[in-house]
């Protein structure tokens, strides 16, 4: 199985991946898309364009291809080289650049591979990268280890909703204790914030609707009660229907910035610094 790494001249993150492969003795072919790899990338792209990820700034490099799997970005490529598909979900392609690596989600994959996940984080941090770690509360034990080892420069927790809606919105069963443990741990990181997306859900009557301001306020209350403080950075985000997988949600009208003000007012009862995303 021959491995190809598409890079771009001067891309420092590509250099870190190359060093990783050389350290492990992994044979690969490098194709610099700005130099003699241009044609090879064009052919690869033509054959695989539906699977190539584009971020806000264009295609995320390096692009790794082993004939079967495509992985992009520093974090996701290292994770795949390290552990194959085991870390899928825990590490995905990120959007941050320069010295930041994101796409690291402690709740996003199989907790059985926690040690390998932490190993990847250690490697990235050892290469002077700053890591932004995300969680929605699940797998608090992994978050605890991230904290104990000082691996994250920034942590963002998506508090999905009040506990009684948590499982419904995520579409899976959750352990309330696990969520609360995560919430309590978050403020101990040096740079952190909480977020809640005003998500759509299907209620008991089978009706599709957005979370109400009261429900978002209950999520804020969950944070206040689990941490014992009203003073945390807390961002209320609007849902993007066009990015929804479920066609029922895709058909929804987005919430306007003015409607979000009611959510902020409600949340501020419990978290005084609540604000809405611009």
């Amino acid at each position: 199985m021959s491995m190809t790494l598409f890079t771009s001249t001067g891309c420092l993150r590509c250099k870190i991946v190359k060093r990783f492969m050389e350290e492990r003795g992994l044979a690969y072919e490098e194709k610099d898309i700005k130099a003699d790899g241009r044609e090879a990338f064009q052919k690869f792209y033509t054959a695989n364009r539906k699977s190539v990820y584009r971020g806000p700034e264009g295609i995320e490099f390096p692009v790794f291809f082993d004939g079967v799997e495509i992985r992009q970005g520093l974090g996701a490529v290292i994770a795949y080289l390290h552990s194959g598909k085991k870390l899928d979900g825990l590490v995905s392609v990120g959007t941050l650049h320069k010295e930041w690596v994101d796409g690291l989600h402690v709740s996003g994959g199989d907790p059985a591979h926690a040690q390998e996940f932490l190993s990847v984080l250690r490697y990235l941090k050892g290469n002077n990268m700053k890591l932004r770690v995300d969680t929605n509360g699940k797998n608090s034990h992994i978050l605890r280890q991230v904290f104990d080892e000082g691996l994250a420069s920034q942590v963002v927790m998506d508090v999905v909703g009040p506990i009684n809606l948590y499982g419904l919105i995520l579409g899976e069963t959750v352990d309330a204790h696990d969520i609360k443990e995560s919430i309590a741990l978050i403020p101990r990181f040096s740079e952190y914030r909480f977020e809640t997306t005003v998500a759509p859900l299907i209620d008991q009557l089978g009706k599709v609707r957005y979370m109400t301001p009261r429900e978002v306020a209950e999520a804020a209350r969950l944070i206040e009660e689990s941490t014992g403080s009203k003073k945390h950075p807390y961002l209320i985000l609007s849902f993007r229907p066009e990015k929804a997988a479920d066609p029922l949600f895709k058909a929804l009208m987005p919430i306007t910035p003015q409607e979000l003000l009611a959510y902020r007012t409600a949340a501020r009862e419990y978290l005084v610094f609540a604000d809405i995303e611009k």
Partner: protein
Amino acid sequence: MTYPSVYPTGVTIYNPAKCWNGYTIFQANELGALLIDMNGREVQLWKGLHGFPNKLLPGGHVMGSLGQRNTAYGMQDQIDLVQVDWEGKVVWKFNRYEYIEDPGETPQWMARQHHDYQREGNPVGYYVPGMDPLVDRGNTLILVHKNIKNPGISEKMLLDDTIIEVTWDGEIVWEWTCSDHINEYGFSEPAKNILARDPNFRPAGGGMGDWMHINSMSALGPNKWYDAGDQRFHPDNIIWDGRETNIIAITDKKTGEIVWKLGPDYDTSRELKRMGWIIGQHHAHLIPRGLPGEGNILVFDNGGWAGYGSPNPGSPTGIKSALRDYSRVLEIDPVTLKIIWQYTPAEAGYVMPYDSNRFYSPFISSAQRLPNGNTLITEGSGGRIIEVTARHELVWEYISPYWGQHLNLNMVYRSYRAPYNWVPQLDRPEEVPIERIDVKTFRVPGAALPGRMKETVVKGTLPYAGGDNALCVGQTEE
């Protein structure tokens, strides 16, 4: 300006037949919200009530604030916006805009209100026949502060201006932040450079750039431009002005975009050159339907020092680059940009440019159109409030007698004239004319009365002639 050391305060001129008679309310420096009648009788003082500004509401209610945030940490942040009845009871209050924790101060929610607010029912914030502001219900537009960083403007922390609309119950239902629209203001490259370097940096709270300094905000209300199909003048749209930038603009309430604007530069078109620079202005608003001049913009064009531009002798770095040593009150047609009416030192009877600075307030100030076509002008820095007719005759003048202890000024930020029937608690006051005293013969006790003890004729002298080119500097052309 040339103020004598000794001069009368209170009402000094009053022609009841030509005035639009009523009560006048203003914030008396470090005293409270003061309500006076046309002879200057202080019919009510809401003692200790702050106001930035104070406004009278029907029923003898007043709006203002209970206090200001410690200026070591905030700049011009009123803690709340309140409505108080005739007996001093707070009947409405808003303060839940931002949770503030200042060192050594009680943590609390604050409105961070400054410079203006508007209660539903009346678009412009002063008396218009048939458009009374609501007193027991309705929404309120409030001009507030927010601290933000916007690298597109400057690397420094900014004190940004935000307009919010709150319901009677204190729910925020609309919010507009002026720095979001930085690309719509049309700053020149020199302006952007100095703005980035010095966004009007003030020392409060560790330092913040009061870059735009919005000091006036009101709705357009129904108007002839919108009736004729010009969407920019939708009645819900909000007109505001930035004192530091010399900008007067209209924001579309639905989209947040700037749909009409004057400034920041006044040399970019023939119409603006004819208008001349508007500098450090206050109280720009649309005269509402129901008042003479409806549909025109009325503004107190202070002069003084304001604007971001290129360095010049008056402005070594380019901040506050436009200068002028007199004020103008302008009534402008917003479509043709022609000046329809004005009150400048010339109309006030001063010879320009020598005496121009006798009508001059470099900061604060306001202008209110009255139902009979008169205009109430607050020439704020000297505490002078005047009423002039459409033909510029001075028919009422009042000088505030209240100098502050912290600040040795008898300044009046803004004053408003309201009808007598807005205060049902009082009987209609007696209106006593005050003739204008001839200052040439007016003497204080102890000073010699007019008249010479010896008058000597010198033969051969020529009579005093006037004529052009008599003085060291030329007279301003009409």
